[in-house]
């Protein structure tokens, strides 16, 4: 079981256990973490699951694909060159066992 911590702009925190294979987006949508919608169902076609990954968890994440790259240019909150990712592309077990992310202001 992996652990995902979501830090909201207002300071509150959601912390969830996630089965391997679950993405940062899916876990948030299923458990009702505010600020993450996943409108396209995890296809990297929208940017409604944009998160900022905390620095200490960036190692081990997959490279940004062409599709994700394009969507990260359309996020509502400004892109952070190092930390911005789409939550649907980050998978528990494959890419992390523990991760902490910040939810962008404008999504929250």
């Amino acid at each position, binding site marked *: 079981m992996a652990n995902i911590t979501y830090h909201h702009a207002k300071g509150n925190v959601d912390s969830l256990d996630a089965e391997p294979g679950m993405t940062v987006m*899916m876990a948030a*949508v*299923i*458990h*009702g*973490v505010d600020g993450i*919608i*996943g*409108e*396209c*169902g*995890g*296809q*990297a*076609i929208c940017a409604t699951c944009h998160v900022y990954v905390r620095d200490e968890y960036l190692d081990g994440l997959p490279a940004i694909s*062409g*599709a994700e*790259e*394009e*969507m990260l*240019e*359309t996020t509502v909150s400004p892109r952070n060159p190092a930390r911005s990712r789409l939550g649907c592309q980050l998978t528990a077990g494959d890419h992390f066992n523990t991760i902490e992310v910040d939810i962008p202001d404008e999504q929250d």
Partner: protein
Amino acid sequence: MNAITTPDNVVVVGNGQAGIQLVDSLRKEGYTGAITLIGEETHHPYQRPPLSKDYLAAGKDPVPLPLRPEKFFTTHDVDARLGVRVTSIDRTARTATLDDGTTLAYSTLVLATGAANRELAVPGADLAGIHGLRTLTDAQALHARLDTVRSVVVIGAGFIGLEFAAAARARGLDVTVLEYADRPMGRALTPVMSGFFADAHGRLGVTLRLGEGIASFDGDNGHVTAAVSTTGHRYPTDLVLVGVGVTPRTELAAAAGLDVDNGIVVDGSLRTSDPNIYALGDCASFPNTHAGTRTRLESVQNATDQARHAAAAILASRPGKEPGSGTGVESGSMPGSEPAGGTGAELGGYADLPWFWSNQGPLRLQIAGLVAPGDQTVLRGNPAEEKFSVFCFRNGTLTAVESVNQPADHMAARRLLAAGLPLTPEQAADPDFDLKAYSKQQPATV
């Protein structure tokens, strides 16, 4: 200000992508009146697009992706009634009656009833083992069966049929697709893109039979054993997936006397011929500025963007309006004649750019705009590398772009088409032309 409060109750029929987004948008825009949401299915609202893609992959039972979390109805103060159906609408009394006997009063009624799968009427069509794919229940049944079958036949080479075909091939199954037309996805794609997908599915190991419709099914003990095509070929199979298109769910609207013409007819505000009733998403026929005609679209983009627009239109029509005064003025079509309303910003007609996607095995197809027959087409990129786009022009104007594994082209196309930036066929075809940078510039005029 705006002190008049008549008992507001927005009743939303349908809890798919359109209905749920409408509820979300109403609350986001500050609507504080009552909302009742009615859904036929008992499941908590879920996303349909993954059902024909990731959901069908081999492995343990997949988890459906909710459209919003379980707590949504509580946090958004929505009276959600799931597992019930609206049986009739009384437009004079402004009530909707449900199949559990309840009658609900509405101030505004929203029809987000979606579409139903078209069914085959050929001999044997009612045999077991013949599936459709629309609901979570359908997908659960298919996921369970796919573990036990060796071969499948797909009727119809549309998006759903080909997504399913690719998913079944990924599981190592024998897959045959029958399509009565001469090319796959013919209603939505250019001939060149259809041709690419016909070849690509061949490379995936799918047997695609074009020009062959379904004539009948053979069965044994009530279970399908073979599909027989209109050319007389017989294809033994363990499972059949029917994907021959949909029909809009208009029966409720028609029975209530609303205008219906391949969908519930709405104006630019997504309002039906009754000013207190709106329709949106798969079930609505709307004046489409991108097509230059009335269309009905089946997509997540269309459902969610129309829901956002309808929510704004509903709220813009409320302040100061006498209930029941229904003037018949189309608020989206005559901006100059609108009285200075309480909401300030003028709401134009719905005009969002249509876009679509379909994942078929390793191929990610994205479409911006609407492809029409006879468009001039220009290639950008290399189909042999499975990374390219088809740019469509009509009378020299860019109208649509189809992209395979080229998300940058797709996003550039959406910016170009939404902003109305001109592009020449020569620019589109020139690999040295920086499409992305060009698409990000501001239009010359406001």
